[in-house]
């Protein structure tokens, strides 16, 4: 084919300059995200780190103290009781929640349920309820006066232990968190189950595997990645717990202290105490711990997979 060399050259030139321009056009689309990202995510972290290495004293004013706030935090009994409390919640509540989520996901995936669409929607529904409303709602229901607990007590003439008393408050809170997220985790696990190729089940059936063998040999291994995701969210949610205790505090102010969770502690330090530098240090310590544990969960998940 005969082509005009001049035209060819021109089109080549046009193309290469377009390519050059397009090298930067990607940045144009990404720029709004990056600008906001820097302003609301990177800058606050840097500013918090900056704050955390200073101390503001009545006498002497603002002074650089290095890591003193961090050593204080790590030795602060108020901080580590808060930390141990959320760690306990994580260790007890999360496994219970994930067991229920897994059972529900397996049941949905088995196609043996009547009304399975209704079951799925109903169990997921609490996720759409704001955490604050969930805490208010359960808080009212826990109430011995007009709540369900009060109703049950007066109906049966018994005394269920008050869920909002100091012995049971963690259980009461764990229940609220479980209620909110059991359906969410169920759906994450359910989506993972649906990517299992049907052939595998047919093969297993031909080999004479029973339902529980199929669950153990095919379904549970297929859920590993989804478990890791659910666990990471649960770790973050537990370590960063704030909404539920903060709302329940108004219902039982004597039971829920201002340092009930690390986040509540940081919040109360910066508001009630005006100890911004120390609050920044606590927030950073907790953020780092959360990220380390979340990362460890991921690494453990991958290592298992390779074994």
């Amino acid at each position: 084919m005969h082509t005009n060399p001049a035209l060819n050259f021109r089109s080549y030139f046009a193309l290469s300059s377009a390519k050059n321009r397009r090298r930067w056009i990607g940045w144009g689309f990404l720029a709004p995200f990056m600008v906001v990202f820097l302003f609301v995510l990177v800058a606050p972290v840097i500013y918090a780190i900056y704050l955390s290495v200073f101390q503001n004293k009545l006498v002497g004013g603002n002074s650089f103290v290095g890591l003193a706030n961090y050593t204080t935090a790590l030795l602060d009994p108020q901080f580590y009781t808060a930390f141990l409390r959320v760690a306990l919640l994580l260790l007890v509540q999360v496994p219970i929640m994930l067991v229920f989520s897994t059972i529900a996901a397996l049941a949905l995936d088995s196609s043996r349920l009547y009304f399975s669409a209704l079951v799925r929607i109903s169990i997921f529904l609490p996720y759409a309820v704001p955490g604050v409303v969930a805490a208010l709602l359960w808080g009212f229901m826990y109430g011995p006066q007009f709540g369900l607990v009060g109703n049950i007590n007066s109906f049966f003439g018994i005394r269920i232990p008050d869920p909002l008393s100091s012995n049971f408050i963690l259980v009461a809170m764990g229940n609220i968190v479980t209620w909110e997220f059991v359906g969410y985790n169920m759906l994450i696990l359910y989506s993972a189950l649906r990517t299992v190729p049907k052939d595998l089940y047919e093969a297993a059936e031909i080999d004479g595997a029973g339902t529980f063998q199929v669950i153990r040999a095919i379904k549970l291994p297929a859920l590993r990645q989804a478990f890791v995701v659910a666990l990471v969210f649960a770790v973050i949610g537990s370590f960063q717990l704030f909404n539920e205790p903060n709302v329940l505090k108004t219902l039982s102010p004597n039971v829920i202290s201002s340092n009930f969770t690390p986040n509540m502690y940081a919040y109360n330090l910066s508001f009630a105490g005006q100890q911004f530098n120390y609050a920044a240090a606590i927030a950073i310590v907790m953020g780092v711990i959360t990220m380390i544990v979340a990362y460890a969960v991921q690494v453990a998940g991958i290592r298992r997979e390779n074994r």
Partner: protein
Amino acid sequence: MSAYKQNGATEYDAGSGISSRAQTISKSRRRRTVGTPRKSVLLTVVMLGMVVYSLTPVAWLVINSTKTQASLFSTFGLWFSGPFALWDNIVTTFTYSDGEFGRWLLNTILYVVVGGGGATVIATLGGYALAQFNFPGKRAVFAIIIGAIAIPGTALAVPTFLMFSAVGLTNSPWAVILPSLISPFGLYLIWIYATDAIPTELLEAARVDGAGELRIFVSIALRLLMPGFVTVLLFTFVATWNNYFLPLIMLSDSRWFPLTVGLNNWNARPPSAGGELITNLIVTGSLIAIVPTVVIFLLMQRYWESGLAAGSVKE
């Protein structure tokens, strides 16, 4: 729903001798147990237990929003009784204390539209850029964003408050809107979605025809990205609607409260001089606060399910 299910399940090669063996045999065999197993009453009953657990608090809320303050305290919680006061409750909720509830509702809508909507637009532009363009520094940007997904939003609340108060941004709607504008998860979702849904040749063809990049994005890419866009919009909607910690620490003036902060403010408010309790208003207000998110989740099932699937399964 069903189209989505097929997408997820087909085109997957089990890659073993077992699967081909299964295929050959299954042709000559009814696939009753695998395709449509018998329904189980026992399993359904067990699951109904979980359904009851999940729905009881919502039912409690609906039932008790129909009660007067007096019957709320004196009657059984899980059944209707006393005068039907739902409409009275709704009216009082909106008129109580100079109608601040209505103001909080409007604030919430403002935060959702500008914050959640803005986050979706920004994430869509960024995700499109990551999927369709090569540019200097892309790899670094990608690593940073993946790292940022792991940073819990609540961990940032106190640092963000400290910085915003240093630059004088607290106690204004911007203090709530600006931090809501970022959705690393949304960006990630759109990026995955745009990689699959937009054929690069289509964009090249439009470029050859002389279309500008912005026009290509608006008239071609955005249309193809719509399902992903709606999914992200849904998630940012719920996140901003439910947002509590951030507005709580940012705002001291109740005129800017969203519903979540306002409701707990009512709850924490000591009884007025006359000892008047407003529990019925808090209950009704809570019901009003969950209606939009519940309705949206029910109507847009397909979108949130695909979003959850993308977030958990795709690597």
